[in-house]
């Protein structure tokens, strides 16, 4: 189960809220201070992409952000509900693993070219920032999964 889960309506003004929450939870989880800027930027990019996809596809469902504290890492999943949203763009960005989930047909991966370009810019920033990133495309939507190592909190005696 996610440590903190966030759902927000696909409006640009809420992306900042997602960044703030993600950075706060990441700090608590033990992500290095020096890396928090990267977490903030990467989650912002992923949410911006999801908001754009929802809006351009007329989807009223919220964007999902799951923040999970694991034993030695902290992971963030940003999910959209646009079928086939991840594959096309992700495949062309070096450093991003692209996985096609069950039921994602190639015909569904078409988006208009302008939105596509901004998509790739966001993904390019994410892949430049985050070592561990995966874009999953499924029939019910896409997910960008990112993770960062954590350092355990010092034990106070």
């Amino acid at each position, binding site marked *: 189960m996610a440590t903190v889960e966030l759902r927000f309506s696909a409006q*640009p*003004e809420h*992306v*900042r809220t997602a*960044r703030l929450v993600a950075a706060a939870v990441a700090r608590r989880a033990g992500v290095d201070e020096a890396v928090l*800027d990267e977490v*903030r*930027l990467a989650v*912002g*990019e992923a949410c*911006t992409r999801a*908001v*754009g996809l929802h809006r351009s596809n007329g989807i009223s469902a919220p964007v999902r952000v799951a923040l999970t504290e694991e034993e030695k890492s902290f992971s963030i999943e940003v999910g959209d509900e646009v079928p086939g949203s991840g594959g096309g763009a992700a495949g062309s960005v070096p450093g991003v693993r692209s996985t096609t989930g069950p039921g994602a047909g190639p015909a569904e991966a078409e988006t208009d070219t302008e939105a596509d370009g*901004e998509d790739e*810019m*966001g993904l*390019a*920033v994410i892949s*430049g*920032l985050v070592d561990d990133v995966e874009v999953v495309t499924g029939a019910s939507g896409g997910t960008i999964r990112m993770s960062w190592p954590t350092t355990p909190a010092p034990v106070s005696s």
Partner: protein
Amino acid sequence: MDLSLSTRNVSGPGGDRTVVEVGGEIDVYTAPKLREQLVELVNDGSYHLVVDMEGVDFLDSTGLGVLVGGLKRVRAHEGSLRLVCNQERILKIFRITGLTKVFPIHTSVDEAVNATD
């Protein structure tokens, strides 16, 4: 934090320059305001812009897109768009996207205004 914008005209050796001082966060919500400002300046005939980013706390790909759009507009009028930035976390975004090769990035407004190359 929201986005703050202010502009002023400065004359340099290469002619008049318009300095756009940007503060706060440039993201998907606030970037349209910056885009409007740049479009307005170009429409009013300011083709040599210096965007001072020293007060920017956050910049994402949407903001980069707006700056690239601004550059495209001024270039259509033989103009220029120079950036002023010393903040490592902002510079990093220009580096990972390869945009350091596209924008002249200066360490001070004076340096940008006086640049003639």
